């Protein structure tokens, strides 16, 4: 069973935020959305969460009661305590009393928030706030979890804890779609979608994307075309779209290299011109 969007276009006035985007989000998997600011990640997630009406195309999502959404940088009420946030959100999903406690207690325990029940959400550290937001989004055991950059600005230790919580939701059968700016995180997702200017530039399993990248990336000290090269530590990586000059060493790219090459290709080849 899966969720997702097909041929989705979203326009805000004259601005096309998403242009014929298709993404499948499977249960028991993490689908990672990557791309820079303005790529369309948030619009896609908000459409999946039912907060944005598609201009055209179809959206497949569960009913509101089976969907959890964590917006960027938020997800809780800062003037309420952790416990009040839990009962407020729980109430919205018809959970209260012992039923709510049965569900919420282990989640708060695992989030490391059990001792923070009486603290105001606004006074929690960034990492704890994000874990609270995630706990609230999954309080009602949703089938689809939509997470907008849950790990941005969160320190590495909280990030790994959050990734564990996400992993547990996936192991329990949820479909998770999350935007991330961290490539190492995307590399651990089952499926990765790279967005650029509202279009899908790449999508697939991380290994498949790395294995099937068009062209070749080499490591070099002296790039042939600096517009197709970028620095990685003291050396350069350079992307050759068609053929590689003799004598250069082929490099097994990582996901970041592949995304850079995909963005370069997008600029090199006009839209609609298929090679």
């Amino acid at each position, binding site marked *: 069973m899966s969720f997702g969007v097909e041929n989705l276009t979203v326009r805000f006035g004259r601005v096309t935020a998403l242009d014929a985007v298709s993404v499948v989000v499977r249960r*028991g*998997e*993490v689908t990672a959305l*990557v*791309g*820079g*600011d*303005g*790529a369309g990640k948030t619009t896609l997630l908000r459409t999946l969460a039912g907060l944005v009406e598609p201009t055209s195309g179809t959206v497949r999502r569960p009913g509101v009661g089976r969907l959890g959404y964590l917006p960027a940088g938020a997800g809780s009420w800062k003037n309420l305590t952790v416990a009040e946030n839990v009962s407020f959100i729980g109430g919205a999903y018809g959970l209260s009393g012992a039923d709510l406690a049965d569900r919420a207690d282990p989640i708060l*325990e*695992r*989030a*490391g*928030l*059990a*001792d923070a029940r009486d603290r105001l959400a606004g006074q929690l*550290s*960034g*990492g*704890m706030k994000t*874990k609270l937001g995630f706990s609230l989004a999954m309080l009602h055991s949703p089938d689809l979890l939509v997470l907008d950059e849950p790990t*941005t*600005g*969160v*320190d*590495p*230790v*909280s*990030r*790994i*804890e959050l*990734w*564990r919580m*996400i*992993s*547990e939701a*996936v*192991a*329990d*059968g949820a479909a998770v779609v999350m935007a991330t*700016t*961290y*490539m*190492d995180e995307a590399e*651990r*997702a*089952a499926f990765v979608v790279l967005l*650029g200017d509202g279009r899908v530039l790449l999508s697939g*399993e*991380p290994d498949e994307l790395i294995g099937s990248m068009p062209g070749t990336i080499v490591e070099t000290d002296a790039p042939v075309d600096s517009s197709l090269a*970028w*620095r*990685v*530590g*003291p050396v350069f990586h350079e992307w050759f779209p068609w053929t590689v000059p003799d004598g250069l060493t082929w490099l097994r790219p990582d996901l*970041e290299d592949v*995304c*850079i090459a995909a*963005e*370069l290709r997008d600029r090199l080849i006009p839209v609609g011109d298929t090679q």
Partner: protein
Amino acid sequence: MTAPALEARSLTRRFRDNVAVDDVTFQVDFGEVVGLLGANGAGKTTTIRILAGLLPPTSGQAFLLGSPPSRASRRRLGYVPQGLGLYGDLTVRENLAFAASAFGVEPATLIDPLAGASDRIVSNLPLGLQRQLSFVTALQHDPEVLILDEPTSGVGALAAARLWDRIRDESDRGVGVLVSTHSMQEARQCDRLLLMFDGRIVGRGTESDIVAGMTTVEVAADSCSWSDAFSVLANDGLLVTLNGTKARVIDLAPADVEAKLREHGIEADVQVVPSTIDERMASLSIRAPAWKEDGSLSRVFPTPAS
């Protein structure tokens, strides 16, 4: 021999009873890019503030360009804070002129795409352009030392690569660069890394030097039982994360992982894999029971028996 660009000698800073920076010693030479890693509260920001002369140390010494930080040496420092340090309600051109006059230099000449946006209000620009402007602003007085806080966070892969091209160009011309970061992509751009934990430096060198001595195993169960394998390990109080459909477990020998799975009748392929720096940080905080504010890991996971 010339003095290094930045140097911390037994740097210590206390805030009341809390030791934020504890006997920290390192240097950044001219022409190298050094990455400073650590969780929130590890002491990175306090260390940077002392080196930049914004905060005095309780003991120890900080050197910026060979002498204790002063107004004169700070003129030769470029700093890009995580908040970018721009004035959101001024235009691109006004931001540049303001910073240039503070340093007594001519404003830098803008190139596209910033040149085309020179009369736009900064808060209306996309983050990628704001980051570029923050760089140009910090570099226009030709600093000899650069301190950058997560310089490329939030921008796309190509935009981040272009910002790093810029940073490496600066180090090629001899600038010493200290980068404070949470991002493993940024860590890979550095010549050398320092890992801070609880106010101290607990790891130095390359990524593999920093993760040396810890164990991470990956568990590949067959496709129908991977979630069972994951749940068994997670319910056992281990720090388990997912890599595709493989479970990653830190700080437990492969034989012990296999034994735990077998107790539940699960056969799986268990392999030792290279650890990540994030996992190293998580491991450190699990082992330090009295860890600070966000010490939730140590409460969730008991300290492993040695």
